[in-house]
């Protein structure tokens, strides 16, 4: 039980935990103390003087953002002296401020506007001419307008402390002070846009959104990010079925305030001119546009004519779509051959942990990473591949003194935060763990996080190692994409059905299917042709995709599908947390993969349910809750926007080990498989060219 102290605020007796900052203690008790530079979780700055309060027996006003509450303290936050102080502070902040709110991107959601409105004076006594400095373009996505800057240093601190990048600094003095990027006139950084998000005014603006519209003109849709497997929540600002920006100011997701460049700027694949919006069928060896009726009929006829089928699913489509796809394959087409591109060996992990209780779970959630006293990270480069995980680790190391141990084939950026790090040769990661045994044995609880380097039998060895540690050891396997985990959980695998239950009949894996003699393929949102040679014309190929990928080009029937921001459903992140995906906008011509699949099912005479386009996603979700082990999750929590962990430890998982099939596509911060190829912001930033995708595999 933390120690409580009593203090008096505005003549009211209150209590707060010892050591709490006055500003926080006041907030906890419903008293707002205005502030600019104070930001929870960042170092204290006391730069803005907006939070001044009157403390008994103090000759001068004190800053509530640096003052811890003490027993018997008597504080006023609302008297004449403070009102005058606030008015003066604001007057000073506005001496050089252009007050061009009508053309400022921040207008309508600006902390300075709100403060002046609430606490400011009606006019200014400054008549001197304002200093004008031209606006600066620091990168295609970050712009800086010095006159609007109130020098709160939030941007500098979030970049130093939160991002660990340290790309921003301060130049000049007094009224000339301004924020400078690390390269003098431009930025070289992670381009995450966290600095823009945290800026209380319109000094830092987003290259993708600036001067386009105004905050009150848009609707806001909070939905999981379409890219990596971390499952950040991004708030899309939508106007006229167009995404104007992505941000995260409500911080309601499991990512807190974090978003990487992909979440914040990587939405414009949705509006890419290269999207396919009309179905196509192959006629005289050419893909020609046709009606949906014709395309669905052609797909159904071709699939019906074939005797053997292979089905390839996606790591980006929803759980509902993946569940329906495996049902379509197993019950409709009656084929056992179904797979997807795997990037983490979840079946091996679930098998190795079989028999453990559901609570406390041996699987860690994203929140556990933030709270764990120690993390062991084997393989992967979270800074590039799982940016939110990297953020969580940095936050935990900074604020909670978490101990980080790293085993990796290369020196990754997180080594800077590590207690100890070891470079291991490929395949020797598990042996190298012995070096950390003594150190880890002293830790209370350890969360072990591993990338696609650890798979198959190595996972069993890893769990055996974890078992020798004292405390509660939990595991996280890192998979590439937004719904990589969901694809496995929903049974888009040749040997396992939904919920890690053995399939009635084991089928061929991805490579075997593509090398074999199957007569027809149904490929949903995947691009195997990028990695495997698929001979055109050998089999009948139906492809559902947003773009004319390598695979789509060899299709016999190509069906334009809706992107992740254009449909409802659920997705499961790599930690097993299920989140609801919300319909953000509609794109003319495209249909959701679920709707396309049920149209084909109907044309082929399969009775698989979910025929009503408007309700099918919910119907399938109900079926998942009823029938998939571990997915009977609290729907109410899900519908209100929470991330709910699925309980996927349900006994032994008899699976066929194929470690050779498990590989990460090693996306960087600026690539994201097929989606990334159509995101203009990701390729526009200079850093994208230097940071190469080592294996260049793609989706």
């Amino acid at each position, binding site marked *: 039980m933390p120690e409580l102290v009593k203090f008096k605020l505005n003549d009211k007796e209150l209590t707060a935990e010892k050591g709490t900052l006055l500003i926080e203690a006041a907030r906890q008790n419903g008293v707002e103390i205005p502030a600019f530079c104070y930001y929870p979780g960042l170092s204290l700055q006391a730069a803005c003087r907006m939070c001044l309060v009157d403390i008994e027996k103090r000759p001068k006003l004190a800053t509530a953002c640096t003052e811890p509450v003490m027993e018997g303290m008597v504080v006023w936050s609302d008297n004449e002296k403070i009102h005058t102080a606030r008015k003066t502070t604001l007057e000073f902040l506005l001496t050089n401020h252009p007050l*061009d709110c*009508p*053309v400022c991107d921040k*207008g309508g959601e600006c902390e300075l506007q709100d403060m002046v409105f609430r606490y400011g004076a009606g006019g200014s006594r400054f008549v001197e001419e304002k200093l004008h400095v031209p*606006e600066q373009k620091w990168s295609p996505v970050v712009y800086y307008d010095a006159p609007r800057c109130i020098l709160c240093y939030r941007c500098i601190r979030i970049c130093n402390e939160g991002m660990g990048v340290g790309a921003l600094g301060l130049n000049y003095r007094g009224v000339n002070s301004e924020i400078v990027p690390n390269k003098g006139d431009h930025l070289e950084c992670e381009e995450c846009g966290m600095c823009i998000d945290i800026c209380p005014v319109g000094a830092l603006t987003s290259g993708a959104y*600036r*001067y*386009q*519209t*105004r905050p*009150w*003109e848009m609707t806001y849709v909070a939905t999981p990010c379409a890219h990596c497997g971390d499952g950040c929540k991004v708030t899309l600002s939508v106007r006229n079925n167009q995404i104007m920006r992505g941000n995260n100011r409500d911080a309601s997701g499991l990512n807190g305030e974090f978003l990487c460049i992909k979440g914040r700027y990587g939405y414009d694949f949705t509006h890419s001119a290269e999207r396919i919006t009309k179905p196509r069928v192959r006629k005289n060896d050419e893909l020609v546009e046709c009606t949906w009726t014709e395309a669905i009929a052609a797909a159904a006829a071709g699939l019906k004519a074939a005797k053997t089928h292979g089905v390839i699913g996606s790591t980006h489509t929803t759980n509902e779509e993946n569940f329906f796809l495996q049902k379509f394959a197993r019950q409709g087409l009656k084929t056992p051959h179904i797979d997807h591109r795997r990037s983490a060996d979840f079946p091996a992990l679930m098998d190795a942990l079989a028999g453990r209780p559901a609570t406390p779970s041996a699987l860690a959630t994203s929140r556990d990473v933030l709270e764990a006293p120690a993390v062991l990270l084997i393989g992967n480069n979270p800074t590039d591949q799982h940016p939110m995980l990297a953020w969580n680790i940095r936050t935990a190391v900074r604020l909670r003194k978490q101990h980080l141990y790293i085993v990796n084939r290369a020196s990754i950026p997180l080594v800077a935060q590590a207690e100890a790090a070891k470079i291991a040769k490929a395949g020797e990661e598990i042996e190298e763990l012995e070096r950390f045994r003594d150190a880890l044995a002293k830790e209370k609880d350890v969360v072990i996080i591993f990338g696609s380097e650890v798979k198959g039998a190595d996972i069993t060895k890893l769990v055996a190692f974890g078992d020798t540690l004292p405390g509660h050891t939990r595991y996280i396997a890192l998979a590439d994409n937004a719904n990589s985990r969901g694809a496995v959980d929903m049974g888009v695998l040749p040997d396992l059905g939904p919920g890690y239950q053995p399939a009635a009949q084991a089928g061929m894996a991805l490579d075997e299917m593509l090398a074999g003699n199957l007569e027809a393929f149904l490929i949903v949102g995947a691009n195997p042709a990028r990695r495997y040679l698929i001979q055109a014309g050998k089999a009948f190929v139906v492809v559902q995709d947003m773009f004319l990928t390598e695979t789509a080009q060899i299709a016999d029937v190509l069906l334009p599908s809706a992107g992740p921001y254009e449909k409802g459903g659920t997705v499961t992140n790599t930690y097993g947390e299920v989140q609801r995906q919300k319909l953000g906008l509609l794109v003319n011509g495209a249909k959701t993969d679920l709707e396309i699949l049920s149209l084909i099912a109907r044309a082929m005479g399969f009775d698989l349910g979910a025929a009503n386009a408007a309700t099918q996603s919910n119907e399938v979700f109900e079926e998942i809750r009823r029938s998939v082990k571990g997915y009977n999750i609290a729907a109410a929590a899900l519908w209100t926007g929470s991330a709910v962990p699925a309980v996927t430890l349900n006994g032994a998982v008899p699976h066929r080990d194929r470690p050779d099939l498990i590989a990460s596509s090693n996306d960087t911060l600026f690539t994201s498989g097929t989606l990334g190829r159509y995101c203009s912001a990701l390729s526009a930033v200079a850093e994208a060219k230097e940071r190469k995708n080592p294996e260049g595999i793609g989706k």
Partner: protein
Amino acid sequence: MISDTLNTAGAIAKGMATTLKELFQPTITEDYPFEPPNFEGRFRGVHVLQRDANGLEKCVACFLCAAACPSNCIYIEATENTGDNRVSAGDRYAKVYNIDYNRCIFCGYCVEACPTDAITHGHDFEIASYETGTLVYRKEQLLAKEPQGAPAK
């Protein structure tokens, strides 16, 4: 009986005198539609988007008029001024600016809201149409003419 007759004749004479007097006064009835009507300066007709002295559009696409509009009939799309394409004096301008006269109630709130005096009420009022589609006026229809001899942009 006689006094009744005299009274009536007197009243008629008085009435006719007024008529006669008014007959020679200048007319105030306007001959619209055969002649253009005269307006008070504050008459609120079809809007005009004004230009500044240099011929640049005054509108900076702040959306405040659209926010103030009680019948929600103003639609704007904003974009940034660039070096070679400067349309307004501010950082941004209205790429699209539509007023839907099917809905506009000529209340003048938009004019009140405008921080740059860009939107004003003009005096045009003859906009009746058999086709509602023609009542959505675009920026090109609303903009004031470029002043003669305006500096090249």
